[in-house]
């Protein structure tokens, strides 16, 4: 069964990063949410823990927004 990646990111960002759920939108940038590059790596590790989907460092170079990360993760579970 496919994971709902957006819901998973929202869960991680609200619970582990203390970000209000209504700020976690597809268009929100990680920088705008207050995440630095270390945080983004930590976020992907949490995603991997919950879904088994691994996002590689070089794949993250073009990831700016939550939507970018969701699309990347979704592309890996098809």
């Amino acid at each position: 069964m496919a994971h709902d990646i957006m819901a998973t990111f929202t869960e991680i960002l609200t619970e582990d990063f203390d970000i209000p759920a209504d700020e976690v939108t597809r268009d929100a940038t990680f920088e705008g949410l207050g995440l630095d590059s270390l945080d983004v790596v930590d976020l992907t590790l949490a995603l991997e823990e919950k879904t088994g989907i691994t996002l590689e460092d070089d794949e993250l170079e073009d990831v700016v927004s939550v939507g970018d990360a969701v699309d990347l993760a979704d592309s890996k579970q098809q």
Partner: protein
Amino acid sequence: MTDVVITGRGIISPAGRGVDEAWQGVLSAVSAAAPHPQFTTDDTPVTLACMVPDFDPDAEFGRGTTRRLDRYAHLAMVAAAEALADAGLLADGDDPAFGGGLADGVERDRVGVLLGSGIGGAQTWASEYPNYIEKGPRRVSPMFIPKMLSNTAAGVISMRTGARGPNMTVNTACAAGASAMHIGRDLIRSGQADMVIAGGVEAGITGLAMSAFAQMGALTKNDDPASASRPFDVARDGFVMGEGSAVVVLESVEHAERRGATIFGRLVGAGASADAHHMTAPPEDGGGAILAMQRALHDAGFDPAEIDHINAHGTSTPLNDKTEAYAVGQVFGDHRPALASTKGVTGHLLGAAGAVEAIFALQAIATDTVPPTANTDTVDPGIDADVVIGEPRSMAIRAVMSNSFGFGGQNASLVFIA
């Protein structure tokens, strides 16, 4: 050289949070030792620890902050924020610990931070290493290094307050909190800062550290809180691990007077030395401890007879207490200062101990009261010193020495007056 005064105090300790609560906890002589929930259910050879009560960093700071920092940094933030508020240096603002940071009018580039820690992010090591072993290198958190580093707490205090003066962490193991105050004071004396946020912090209560200290024979295996940590007692057999942080604001007297700050005491003497002897054991002749005390007295320009009370290192280990009492006798001769160890209540806070005990030294002066050495019923007949046990002792106290001795044979003594 300028006099250096204390204008702010903060503490979060097993004896309580805040200066008044922690001091009352120490005066009560009720040990803070309690069975640790983890160590009573696994195979850890020692089950008692002195933990900070009722502290929920997630609720206090939010997960966004706490997930990026080790518990040791959380504790240092609490103590530093209390000290800065006590000193009247914080602006209103959104930071849950530091409000708006250093207030307008404070010259931020002249405010330093000097912390001592023996270990740093011990719990981060303990929780992350299994990830590496079980899940592999690619699952190691990128937060591991910044959370674990022992200088992170000092760095975070600067980030959240805006203090851009000299900023460092000193490690002399169990003397680190005192060493930080020593060096912090000297930064002010040498003109490199007007104020230094100085203290110690430790959060080393992990299964790994508890097991290792137990294997060394340093921890008591006594599981009765009312007798486990009993400094100078004939039946003492080791220390109880504690955690916490204490921080003071050190300030040049001219700067403090100019801004009308309340002065809680003066750090007039500091001495440091090495045993040059052994990794963990003190020399029988008290060598390094004697030197540290003598140097602190010399630095203060005091005769031994001017010290009324000593807050001892007094860990409750057989070797430390015997050697320390002997060293005190060598330094003070027939003048017998009232000797007390507050570790009967707090346990041993390792790198935070010297800072926590500096706060208690200041309180002793402010209240003319020596706290009793808790749990100690019968002073070791091999110890020839005026050990205060039972009730707090009311007496005129002008000057207090606080001793701290670290593994590696690194020693620090501080002298405080009103």
